Every structure is written in C-alpha cells, then in structure tokens.
C-alpha cells in the first residue's frame, strides 16, 4: 500500500515519538508513506481564529501539492486533518470559484501573471479536483485490510491492559467537514485496541475537548478540562489513555504532574499513541525509544502487565 503523507509541523519536533512510531509500524505493515514534497503548515487554530482566507489558503496549498502526486493523503494530526478537510469542502463546494480566484490572484500576482481574463489558463490548471481522499491516520490504519495485517503480525497480545480510547474533537467534528460516520461515538480505536488484545472500556468522554489550543495561553483552563478527563478515565477503571492526536497526547501527558499538584491527588495515567500500542503488540524494537520521550513514564505500568521487559 502506498499513500502520500502529510506529517504536519509538530511531528518534526515535539511529537517526534508519534512520528517515529508511525514510521516504525508502517514499515512493518508494508505501508509506504510518501511524504509530500515541500509541504507547509496548515495554519492550525491560529489561522482560523484570525484570518479566514489564510485558514483556507494554507491547507489549499498542501492539497494542491498532494493532488499533483495523485495518491490519497494520510494525516496523523487531527488539527491538520480538520483544516485540510475544511479546505477540501470549500474547494469542492458552491463557494469554490470565489475562493479559488482569491487564492490564485495572489499566486498569479507574484508569478508576474496578469490577473483577469488572460490568466485563466494557468489558473485553471491549478484548480483542485478532489480526486484524492484525505485520510485521518487512525481511519486509515483501521481499515479491514490493515487490521487483518496487524492481526496476522501480533507477537505479544496486550493482555490485561485496561484502557480508555480518547479520540478528541477534530477528527470527528463537525461531520459535514470530516465526513465522520460516528461523530458522537466513534469506535474504530476501541476496536483496534481489542484486536491488539487489550481492553477498551466504555466512557462518555471519548470526544470531549481537552482544550489543547489554549494549552499555552490559558493553562488554568486546561487543568480543569484535563482533570475532568482523568477522573472519568479512572471512573471507567482505565489504567492508561490511548490517543490518536499529538495535541491530545501532549495536553494530557505533559501537565499530569502539574494537575496532580494543583488538585492534591496523584494521577498516574500514561497517555499512549495507538501507533505505539500497535508497535508494542507487534514486538517492534523501537517501542522503548518512543515511550521514553513521554512525560508520564509508561514503563512501570507496561512492565507490571508483563508487556515490556
């Protein structure tokens, strides 16, 4: 299987653990991830909060690059995924012509092209056709075909690991942008976790917001939101939280000691990427390196469960 890959900015830096686990397991599952050449930032929350044009133009640039390659594109970051999908909906919707002419007027100006009638030709060439599919990484890796590959390669089933799956906001919502089938109660991560041999407990907070966009500017808000998630994860009897987004991961992992301190209660809930769990079950040797990059040390839990030596 060969697909385009849009890693997004944080996978090159703070989410290096996620990036490495993705590369690691993809190779083992015979999935070829072709990084989109010359990709740029999707604009994230900052762009859609401050400037609607930029919020669509930045992902559009990347969609045009991806479509030129011609393969479906897989996106590991929930926010990037959401922004690319938002741009896709505009580029294929009733406002497409209006937006494209704004976008291309800019590009045309800088390339010394006349805007207006004469520039129709080069402009037409760059219109987004929507021939490729934009995949969220979790959706991509939980297709039946991939699940059966995973099942066939499991070396060490994750017996006895009690988890809750935390999907976050932006892969699911809003469904008219994401095309999610089950936006209030997604189940594909739960299913994957069970395929890997672990337990995925039901809870009502799988798509509740953790507030990651405010992590730097309003840490007090994060403490309230994230502590609520910890409490409900514990109430569901989970020992760790499985995530599919690096912002959720950072937001639940980095601040656990701060929250413990603030609320006077010691929380110990490792926050694991679903890709790390796949790696663990497949017996991938990279797992230790990935997990060492976390703030909440997952080794004590995994060793107690006999899943790591």
């Amino acid at each position, binding site marked *: 299987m060969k697909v385009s890959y849009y890693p997004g900015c944080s996978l090159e830096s703070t989410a290096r653990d996620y990036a490495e686990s993705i590369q690691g397991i993809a190779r083992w599952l015979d999935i070829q991830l072709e990084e989109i050449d010359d990709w740029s930032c999707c604009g994230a929350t900052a*762009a859609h909060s401050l400037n609607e044009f930029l919020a669509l133009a930045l992902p559009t640039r990347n969609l045009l690059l991806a479509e030129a390659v011609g393969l479906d594109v897989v996106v590991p970051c929930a926010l990037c995924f959401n922004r690319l999908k938002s741009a896709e909906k505009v580029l294929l919707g009733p406002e497409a012509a209006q937006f494209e002419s704004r976008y291309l007027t800019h590009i045309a100006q800088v390339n010394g092209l006349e805007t207006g009638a004469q520039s129709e030709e080069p402009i037409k060439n760059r219109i987004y056709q929507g021939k490729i599919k934009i995949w969220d990484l979790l959706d991509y890796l939980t297709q039946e075909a991939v699940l059966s590959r995973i099942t066939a390669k499991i070396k060490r089933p994750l017996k006895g690991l009690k988890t809750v799956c935390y999907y976050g906001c932006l892969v699911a919502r809003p469904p008219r942008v994401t095309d999610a089938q089950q936006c209030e109660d997604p189940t594909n991560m739960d299913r994957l976790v069970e395929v890997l041999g672990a337990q995925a407990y039901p809870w009502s907070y799988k798509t509740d917001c953790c507030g990651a966009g405010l992590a730097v500017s309003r840490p007090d808000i994060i403490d309230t939101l994230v502590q609520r998630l910890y409490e409900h994860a514990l109430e569901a009897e989970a020992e760790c939280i499985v995530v599919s987004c690096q912002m959720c991961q950072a937001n639940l992992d980095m601040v656990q000691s701060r929250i413990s301190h603030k609320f006077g209660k010691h929380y110990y809930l490792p926050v694991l990427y679903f890709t790390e769990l796949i790696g663990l079950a497949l017996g991938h040797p990279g797992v230790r390196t990935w997990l060492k990059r976390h*703030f909440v040390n997952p080794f004590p839990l995994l060793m107690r469960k006999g899943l790591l030596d």
Partner: protein
Amino acid sequence: MRELLSEPLSPKPGLGEQLLDERKISVFDCYQCRKCSAGCPLTFAMDFYPHEIIRLTALGQEDLVLESNTIWVCASCQTCTTRCPNDIDIAAVMDYLKERAIATHRSIPQKNVATFHQVFLDDVRLSGGRLHEALLLRMYTSRSGGAMAKLVNGTFMGDLKLGFELFRKGRLRLKPPQRVRDIDEFMELFKKAKVWGE
C-alpha cells in the same frame, strides 16, 4: 451576562446581516434551544454562553460580543456546530467575531490567547512555511508581556522547565524547519492576512 444586561437591549441591524453576507451563516435561524451551550465544555470560563453570543450577534450588539471573553476562550471543539438543530456554524461565528474584534481594534480581554495565535502565524511566516516550535515558545514568552510578573508567579520557570524537559527527551528541535521552495508565492498568501496591529 445577567448583570451585564440589566437594561433592555435595543436591537441594531448590522452584525448579523454582515455575517450572513460575508460567511453565509445565519444567526437569525437560531431559536434559542441552548443545545450549543448545554454541550459546550468551556462555559465555565465564558462570560456569555454560546447561545447568548448567537442571540446578541443577531441583535447587532457589537460592543458586547466583540469584547467578550467567550470568543477567545472558545476552544473550537466544534461540539456546538455539530449539534445545532438549525445548522448554525457557531464555532465559525466565534472565529468571525475574533477576526472582526482585531480588525476593528477592540480591546481584547484575553490578550494572551490572541497573542499566541499571532505569534504562531508570525513563526510560520518567519520560518518560511513550517512552524518552528522552539521559536514559538521563545517568541510567545517575550511577546505575551509581563515577563516580570511571570518571573514572580513562577510561570516563567514552568515554561523554562517544560522547554528543558522537551529538549532532554529529544523533542525540541532547535534546527529550523525546511523552508518552502517558492517562498515569494507563499508569502503572498500572508499579505492578505495583515491581522496584527504592530
């Protein structure tokens, strides 16, 4: 909200109509069922609930909505937008109001949030296309002001410790990211986006 609105409001045409015109979002479709506010996880930090923002927007109460906390503490989680029975994109209304608050030089009660967004975009621009996270932390710490206050209340040490921990775990890349090849074309997209006052 209740204290703020002890006097009856006089509706003014303008804001709601412009939103409809510019973004094709009709706040006039709202029948105040409050489903948006019921599901919003951030209401504890807001001065107006989401359904109140929608109503006030329909009534053209620019001063109240553009200077509210709500529009900045909204985490864009899209719960309201997903659940509104009248298909009002409430999260996009929040974005519209933020953009407008900056464009019309309103006083912004949540300066840190706005600064963070601006610093983020500055970083992408200066880095030539991709966010340089190490730079983001530094720029935000210096631009979010009150460096002295931060030193005193310990936030600064918190930021520093976090940065150090990230670095120690190999997660803070100091090397700048790759720049896009056609940098002029890329910058052109930003020209439209002169949203910061400085």
